């Protein structure tokens, strides 16, 4: 279970692979897997349940949004040294209309699924609109736990 590194939230709107996660403070913890460059690496082949929870928020004090029409998305992806480009495992999100009239907007996405993973494969999380990420540890996190051997 990895929680977002609140001190290192990327700016901007374009889709961004989050690379800065806590692994040892608060609810964050890691065992039998490795965190390297923001990717959760599998050390043991197995069937894992993967999950991610991403919260987006905007307060009017942060100024106006570029557009009131947004698409807030999360993509959980798999990469491996053996296969060059990444593969989308799970996606979730919503198009949103965040009108300037409201002072605060909030939206959370949750995805989860059961996947066969091999040692050496790596899981990472891409989000749209990274600057809108909620930095709380109970808001933006992802993780995995092994359920069965292969």
């Amino acid at each position, binding site marked *: 279970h990895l929680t977002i590194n609140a001190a290192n939230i990327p700016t901007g709107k374009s*889709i961004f692979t989050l690379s800065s996660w806590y692994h040892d403070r608060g609810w964050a913890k890691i065992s039998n897997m490795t965190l390297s460059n923001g990717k959760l690496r599998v050390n043991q082949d197995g069937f894992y349940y993967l999950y991610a929870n991403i919260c987006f928020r905007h307060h009017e004090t942060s100024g106006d949004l570029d557009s009131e029409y947004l*698409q807030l998305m999360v993509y959980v992806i798999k990469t491996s040294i053996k296969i*060059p480009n990444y593969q989308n495992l799970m996606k979730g999100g919503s198009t949103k209309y965040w009108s300037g009239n409201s002072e605060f907007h909030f939206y959370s996405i949750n995805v989860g699924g059961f996947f066969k993973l091999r040692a050496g494969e790596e899981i990472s999380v891409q989000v749209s609109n990274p600057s809108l990420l909620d930095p709380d540890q109970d808001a933006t996190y992802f993780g995995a736990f092994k359920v069965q051997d292969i």
Partner: protein
Amino acid sequence: VAPPCTQERHYEHLGRCCSKCEPGRYLSSKCTPTSDSVCLPCGPDEYLDTWNEEDKCLLHKVCDAGKALVAVDPGNHTAPRRCACTAGYHWNPDCECCRRNTECAPGFGAEHPLRLNMDTVCTPCLLGFFSDISSSTDTCRPWTNCSLLGRLEAQPGTNKSDVVCSSSLTLRKPPKEAQIYLP
């Protein structure tokens, strides 16, 4: 001399150097002390585009018409399918969706050739050309040549409007009352 155990086409297993599977095939079973790897072909709608030791092929992506996508390359067992947005739309990486192409405002024209899956590039109309519409496909159009029509230019063109030719014809057919004969 044992063939080199190149990483691209081989893998090590049980201390042996075994063959990876070629693109389009997956590793059904690893090599044994007495036999090399067993590779089987990818199934329908699957591919692997590298020498591999994968126990399963990858699934081709869906060129989802419901997201305005069309297949520009259907792919096969050894090459991934490639999708692009249908005409008039371009792939926007921010939303990973097909966005309407930008319309060039009057005074600007769409740069040709229009490129599939890319947003319109609008360029200002040069002198002698104009565009009086918003369009994601039309280029700037040349001003009308009044003299070719045997007319005079009543109003000059701009980047947003064509010239206006006079309604009357030029002197080549002089009007009846004003005929002047020079000595």
